[in-house]
């Protein structure tokens, strides 16, 4: 594999909530200590679930991916990553209190700067925003946008409302203003069950449910007109899988042809909007066992600009160093590792 690839989805983890204390205001630090709030880890990645970390990425006595040393020795160096975008999934977006969520998000982002970005030049990061309150989310974007090591705004695929709804638009306006893509990552704030049919029994179902959730998020973003209003906004689907994309392109476009009147601001085929404004990371791949089928599916996608290289470290999506999906044509692999990420994240070319 070529060296210097741009890894578009890497997950440093917060060792524990105490690690964020230095970055909180006195008020928030004292409040959460007094109230006994000790952790914000989401059920989206149970600590000891096999998916949450590959066995050889589980250090003794410490949380996976919780130190710079671990990330360097387990991911950046062995995979010869040139640049990695850190998407921290600590559950600050899940708190019901808007202000507390904003306070925690702020601390998380400041921790990311001090402990990661300042210390490792290969790292970039997404601004974790308190989606609980779009105005406060915009404040956080405005606060940090000047630091060009922040290359994206991070949201989760499932929240209070479908992501295309207008109440979120101030976030998209701010992101577009600052040339920041919106990164939508697998996961939920669990305001609703992860399926339309209620709360599933197994974690296996929860994780499987992320793919349909991404499909519906795309429907919402497109049908609500986010890309009509913000035509240069890029949306990156992170840890979403991508082999479902052609089927969704087909279905949404088909129905648009008959139902355009309901959403008249959608003035071109949804499949075309996906090709121009949406990107997806390569892990997990959800590929068929048959390479020929996989290559045919890539044809169905109708664009070689859609996919962005990712490791999803430390989540266990691949073994050994099989970080790239099997069966990618050579030219495409290179595009996925270099050109597509650079085209998506304008700030990378400024500072790389």
């Amino acid at each position, binding site marked *: 594999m070529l060296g210097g690839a741009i890894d578009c989805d890497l997950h440093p983890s917060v060792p524990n909530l105490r690690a964020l204390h230095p970055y909180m205001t006195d008020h928030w630090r004292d409040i959460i200590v007094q109230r006994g709030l000790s952790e914000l880890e989401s059920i989206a990645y149970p600590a000891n679930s096999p998916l949450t970390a590959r066995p050889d990425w589980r250090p003794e006595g410490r949380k996976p991916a919780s130190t710079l040393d671990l990330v360097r020795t387990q991911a950046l160096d062995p995979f010869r990553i040139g640049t990695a975008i850190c998407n921290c999934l600590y559950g600050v977006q899940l708190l019901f209190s808007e202000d507390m969520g904003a306070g925690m998000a702020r601390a998380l982002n400041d921790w990311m700067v001090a402990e990661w970005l300042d210390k490792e030049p290969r790292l970039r990061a997404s601004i974790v925003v308190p989606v609980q309150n779009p105005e406060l989310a915009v404040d956080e974007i405005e606060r940090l946008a000047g630091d060009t090591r922040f290359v994206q705004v991070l949201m989760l695929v499932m929240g209070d409302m479908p992501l295309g709804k*207008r109440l979120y638009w101030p976030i998209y306006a701010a992101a577009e203003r600052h040339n920041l893509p919106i990164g939508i990552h697998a996961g939920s704030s669990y305001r609703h069950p992860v399926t339309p049919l209620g709360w599933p029994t197994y974690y296996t179902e929860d994780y499987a449910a992320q793919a349909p959730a991404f499909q519906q998020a795309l429907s919402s973003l497109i049908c*609500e*007109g986010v890309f*009509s*209003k913000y035509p240069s906004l890029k949306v990156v689907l992170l840890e979403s899988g991508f082999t479902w994309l052609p089927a969704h392109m087909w279905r949404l476009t088909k129905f648009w*042809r008959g139902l355009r*009147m309901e959403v008249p601001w959608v003035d071109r*085929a949804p499949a075309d909007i996906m090709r121009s404004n949406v990107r997806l990371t390569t892990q997990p791949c959800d590929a068929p066992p048959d390479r020929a089928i996989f290559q045919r599916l890539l044809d169905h996608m109708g664009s070689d600009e859609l996919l962005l290289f990712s490791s999803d470290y430390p989540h266990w999506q691949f073994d050994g160093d099989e970080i790239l999906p099997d069966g990618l044509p050579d030219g495409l692999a290179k595009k996925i590792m270099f050109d597509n990420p650079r085209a998506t994240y304008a700030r990378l070319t400024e500072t790389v």
Partner: protein
Amino acid sequence: MPRHVVATTTEIPAGTRKLVTVRGRRIGIFNLNGEYFGLFDRCPHQGGSLCLGLTTGLVEAPEPGTYEYSRRGEILRCPWHGWEFDIRTGQSVTDPESIRARSYQVEVAGGTEVIERKLVAETVPVMVEENYIIVDV
């Protein structure tokens, strides 16, 4: 190009339509404010009877949440999947360049002219004092 007399103008007042059959083809004749247009009665999507569909206006949106409604009665929606077609041109609204309903040239001529030009009038008796709708099929 054979020209067929299909109806009198009084049969198709403004805002109405008539389905006629010419050389085995069903064609919908529409009167939009005194102008006549002809469309093949077969939706290019799945072959539904296009000309039985609802006519409506054109809904456009300069931005999400703002609706501009114009050209009432000039957009035809297939009765099946609701695809929208511009009656004047046959073009679909979603893909005007690549999806269109087959349209036919329609003109109006008086009875005398019809007789003089020996236009084909299979089922329509031609009277000098009437005006006729003629389709180019």
